[in-house]
């Protein structure tokens, strides 16, 4: 089963977390993890625990903010939200990813005989 899931590339999780927070507003760790799993259609191999390393990294860079609060079902949890600088960073990273993936797409769709040019 594990074979069929996507292993996360270095740094991709940070970007997913930023995007999730940008789209959903304030969320706690579990919420973020679940959201990523749902959106990816359960295609991503994610140990939910790894999200916390990502969160602290983003927080230390000042791209997200954290605050203890209470959830809908009255449970104490730490809620994360994206900051202004985080949004800026998200724009940059998104542009970078899109460029990279389009380049990767072109390279990987290269035909065998094109090498002759």
């Amino acid at each position, binding site marked *: 089963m594990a074979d069929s899931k996507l292993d996360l590339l270095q740094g991709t999780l940070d970007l997913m977390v930023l995007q999730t927070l940008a789209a959903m507003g304030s969320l706690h760790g579990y919420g973020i993890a679940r959201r990523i799993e749902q959106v990816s259609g359960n295609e991503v191999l994610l140990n939910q625990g790894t999200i916390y390393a990502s969160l602290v*990294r983003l*927080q*230390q860079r000042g791209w997200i903010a954290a605050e203890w609060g209470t959830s809908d079902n009255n449970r104490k949890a730490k809620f994360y939200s994206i900051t202004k*600088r985080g949004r800026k960073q998200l724009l940059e990273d998104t542009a970078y990813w899109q460029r990279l993936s389009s380049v990767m797409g072109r390279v990987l769709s290269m035909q065998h005989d094109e090498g002759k040019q």
Partner: protein
Amino acid sequence: MTDAIRQALNRLRAFFHKEPLDRELGDEVASHLEFAIEENLRNGLSPEEARRQAYIRFGGVEQAKEQHREARGFLALDVLVQDLRYAMRMLRRDRSFTIIAVLILALGIAANTAVFSVVDTVLLRPLPFPNAQQLTWLAANKGEGGLSAVTFTVDAFEEFQRHNKSFQEVTSYQTFYNSIQYRLMGYGEPLPVFGVQVAGNFFKTLGVQPAFGRLFSREECQKGGRPAALLSYPFWQQQFAGNPRMIGQTITLNDQIVTVVGILPKTFDFGSVFSPGLKVDFFVPAIMDFWRTWGNTLALVGRLKPGVTVAQAQAESNVLFPRLKAAHPEWFEDYTATITGLKDYVSGKLRRSLIVLWCAVGLILLIVCVNLSNLLLARSAARSKEFAMRSALGAGRTRLFRQLLTESLVLSSAGALLGWGLAFVITTYLAHQGSIALPLLSSVRVDGAALLWTLLIAVAAAVLFGLAPGLRISGGSLQDALKNSGHGMSAGRKHERLRAALVISEVALACVLLIGAGLLLRSFLRVLDVDLGFQPSRAAAIKIDYDDQGSAARRGAILQEILRRVDALPGIEAAGIADMLPLDRNRSWDFHAKGRVYRKGELQDSLVYVVTPGYLRAMGMHLREGRDFSWHDTASSGRVVIINQAAAHYHWPGEDPLGRLSVVNGRDTRVIGIISNVRESSVEDASSPEMYLPMTQAGPEGAELVVRTQLPLAALQSSVMRTLRSMNPGQSATEFRPLQQIVDHAVSPRRFFVLLVSSFAALGLVLVSLGIYGVISYSVTTRRQEIGIRMALGATGPRVQLGVMARTMRLAIIGIAVGTIASFAAAKWIASLLFGTSPTDPVTFAGIVLVLGAVALVAGYLPARRASRIDPMIALRSN
């Protein structure tokens, strides 16, 4: 960019707030799991399954926490702190090991730091003057011969100063400063003080600015100018309590009123650069017009123009001096100067000695490292179970290696700290040894460079001695470790071999060190054994003042009376007066056999001493032929001279010069006596031709009263001083100088080196004996059961003992053999430092080999005896 900084700051904060952050994370993870369980329950899973799924999805809780810590802080730093803490705990537990290791390291590092400070000051660092690389020393006569030979006349100095193109400045000082006696008047008894006369531009050339006041003005350097003096900083502090109002005040030197125009800076020490061991109280201008007729008296120092090399200046000197000589037919000689960097002149002769010293402490450090490596290996073997356990619990090899290296670093840091303190004490002590005639020694101190050096060697040492055990631990396999520490097994063979190799190299290193030190020590003993040509023991000299108003007859009468009164004092066996003492200072005059034709360049000036009758006897000099002077040799009687053997051989080869005529400074003089050679300028150099002239016929340069006595000098001081005062109330308050002190001063550089090298060698010997003892003793401990079995099977105690001893001696003999071979090379390298000792001196080599062998024997005997007393029953049962 700012984000990166923000992150670094946050990480740093996280490093210091581990606990609250960990607690917060724990809460967060707990709530995460509860959310998950709740959702799983909602999805209809059983409570147990809901929980299980939540944990599976989360992944390892501890792993996640570790990742979190890694992301937020400095993991490497965390590990370091952990390692440090662990290392401290281990070292505290093994207290005796730690103390021994730190002590050994401290000794090794102290020796290295102290020697580095000396080497740095004397060899590496530039002289304490601005742009010191431009300063040069100019010596006439290729720098060979006594002071009169290598110095210049005022004319030669001024002509060269005027015409040269290579130097910004050429300056000079009066080298016969010993001959000019100054007394400071008006502060109680006349106080003998020491002054040096320098050219007006002396301080400007060196780049020395006065701490207070100003340098000499042009007018003050001219004949008839207002007398002026610059005080040295220590003299100003000591005599005038550092009173800044001294500037512009007058002091009385002899009978002259002199204005103090300035105070020289604390950092300027004339003696340490130009005449090691000399303490100068003040400087006065050398009035060139006064010295013009005095012959060669000036030492020259120059400051090269920027971009001019010593070689270029030398080339100019080679051309310019012959031209000047051609223009001045009245010059005695061609003063072509040999130019060297001032630094080379000051410390060039010491280079080899200091480098040898440096190598010796390097060897010590290596021995220390090998020794500690051995100790740590023994420990690591004892700790192999611990490491196997940690390894089984998941510690990686690099982690274990790092742990061991951390421990070595902690050890060496402690050693470095202690060693640095020790080095500080040693160098402070050395810097205050005025009696050691080594240049710049007074400015030796442990400074930033030395601190850096300490740090460097501490780290290098830690890596060196931590490497072997570290590699062994991290390289060995888990099973091996567990197997090796099992029942009845001896330590692994590889391990034993490594330790044996360490012992062998330690013995070899110590062997080289000991043989080198042995050769130097033997040379020193030979130097002490040199026949000086006079007997320094039980004799002492005191400077005396008298006023002869320039008349030789009057001088004769005064001196005869002084000697008569001193001779009459109880306890005086012999007394005599000379203007200069051997090994102290000298001058030279023209001297040759009358009627003999000398080849060009063959004739050199001879050293001259002007003495009274009885001086030779008071000094314990040996009159081989002829007679001593008498008071009947006067200005009106025939001129007479006593020469030494060297002069006899040189000027009358194969003949007996007694009764023959010689020419002294152009006047016919009869040779009336021949004395054995006297070591006049250095204990180690062969004697050169000397002549002795009577005080009644030649002009002396000062006067030293030499007495030979059985009494302690302190008892004699007051009675002699009273006698001198009764003759001359203005006699300054000087003290007796034992002749032995003058000899000691002359051999002090060699004594200094020998003392240091020998103490390093002794240290090496102690370390080696510790090393051998440690290894053999350890191997006996680990082989207890093996020995027990062998004894149970019939091996006797003496046989076991013999086996252990044989093993010890095998290691020692291999080490000694390797060391001896290496010593031959090392000895050849230090051959130029030896005196009267061959670099392959069989006595030294044999002696050291025996000493090392004996030490190995003793070091091996103790554990061997313990081995022979093992009770097989106890040994076999004790597992």
